């Protein structure tokens, strides 16, 4: 039975002066120290006793974590410490990464999104993370500082299980880069939850698509699913059908069915596996249909 503390348990707050110092401290205190950004996952887990860290290492503001910048060549680089609202409010994000902006607006509440970060959402690696799908479909790559210096972690291979990633003790995610999406792209995020806003996803469906003359269908469709597998899930088999067959109602229905068949949700207090599967099918169909309509309108 859940019986969280009234407040946060005793912890030490550490604000290191440099990345090296932060990384060394985290590596030396593996299992009892944790980096944090907004803290919106961290504080909740500490309070309810699920996490028992002794040290919280504040990595916001360290080199490269506090800025967000857009470059027409390189795309968008979001510093780890940048709160979701700041990203969502950027005109460049609304113009070039509308799927990300849409996904952000479904997370928690406005005031929570002033603390919550996209990189925190990713590092937390909850299958329900709302912004992860969009970041994956835009081809997001994390920049990580670790014992061996800086490395890149493409999101497609980053997640290992609920709360599990390629990050090792001492690793600090610095920023996320999203390359500029191809011309003519259209996206849609549909979240099924109990309340209309503010709830965690029972199912989340992200779709991104753009014209691609090299494909038989003429379009490239990308699909990511939230809350229906141990990790944020891509559905390559459905994407393949949409690349190879003429896009119409039947093809969309087929792809949606494949999405449903390829996920492996669990029953939990938010929803049953059965409902989740059905919603994956229905919402994938809905998202694909809406995206398809926009693509054809644009064409």
């Amino acid at each position: 039975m859940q019986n969280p503390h009234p407040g946060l348990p005793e912890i030490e707050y550490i604000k290191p002066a440099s990345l090296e110092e932060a990384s060394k401290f985290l590596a030396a205190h593996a299992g009892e120290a944790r980096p944090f950004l907004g803290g919106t996952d961290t504080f909740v887990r500490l309070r309810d006793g699920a996490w028992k860290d002794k040290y919280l290492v504040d990595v916001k503001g360290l080199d490269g974590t506090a800025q967000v910048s857009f470059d027409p060549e390189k795309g968008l680089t979001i510093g780890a410490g940048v709160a979701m609202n700041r990203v969502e409010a950027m005109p460049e994000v609304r113009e070039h990464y509308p799927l990300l902006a849409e996904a952000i607006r479904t997370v928690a509440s406005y005031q929570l999104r002033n603390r919550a970060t996209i990189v925190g959402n990713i590092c937390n690696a909850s299958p329900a993370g709302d912004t992860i799908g969009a970041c994956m479909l835009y081809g997001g790559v994390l920049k990580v500082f670790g014992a061996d210096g800086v490395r890149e972690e493409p999101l497609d291979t980053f997640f290992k299980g609920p709360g599990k990633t390629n990050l090792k003790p001492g690793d600090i995610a610095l920023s996320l880069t999203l390359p500029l999406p191809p011309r003519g792209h259209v996206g849609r995020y549909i979240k099924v939850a109990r309340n209309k806003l503010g709830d965690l996803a029972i199912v989340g469906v992200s779709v991104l698509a753009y014209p691609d003359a090299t494909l038989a269908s003429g379009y490239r469709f990308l699909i990511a699913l939230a809350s229906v597998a141990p990790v944020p899930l891509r559905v390559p088999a459905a994407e393949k059908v949409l690349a190879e067959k003429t896009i119409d109602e039947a093809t969309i229905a087929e792809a949606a069915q494949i999405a449903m068949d390829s996920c492996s949700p669990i029953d939990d207090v938010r929803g049953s596996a059965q409902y989740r599967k059905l919603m994956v099918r229905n919402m994938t169909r809905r998202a694909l249909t809406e995206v398809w309509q926009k693509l054809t309108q644009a064409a």
Partner: protein
Amino acid sequence: MGYHRITLTVNGVMELVDVPSNMTLLQMLREKLGLTGTKNGCASGECGACTVMLNGEPVNSCMVLAVECDGADVVTVEGLAKNGQLDPLQEAIIETGGVQCGFCTPGILISSRALLNRKPKPTEFEIREAISGNLCRCTGYNRIVEAVKKVAGTE
């Protein structure tokens, strides 16, 4: 557990406070500064009763460590009225009847003030969206929405 000495501005007043590592901004306001207008309804970011303005943007003060606020500018419900003159939003919520038990009210006022600051003429959907993280069990919300519309002049 370590203590940290921080300075910050709260409702325009400079404060110097010693805070333990695990103290939240909410606890500091209530327990160290005696600013009890900001309420604790869940301590986990869900209810919005603890909403305050941090550097001009609303946050759940139960989801911010006090030590993170070194150098920050904080505005609480106590800071909305100026020289005994209520903020128009406070006047409006009185007029529309958007207050019953009043426990959600401080957080609601901060969330909606912040909305009006960033968007003086929000749509009804934007108002509802902006306060969707503030739970109210008494009013049914529509009178709160009316109050924001009134200030925005969009009713």
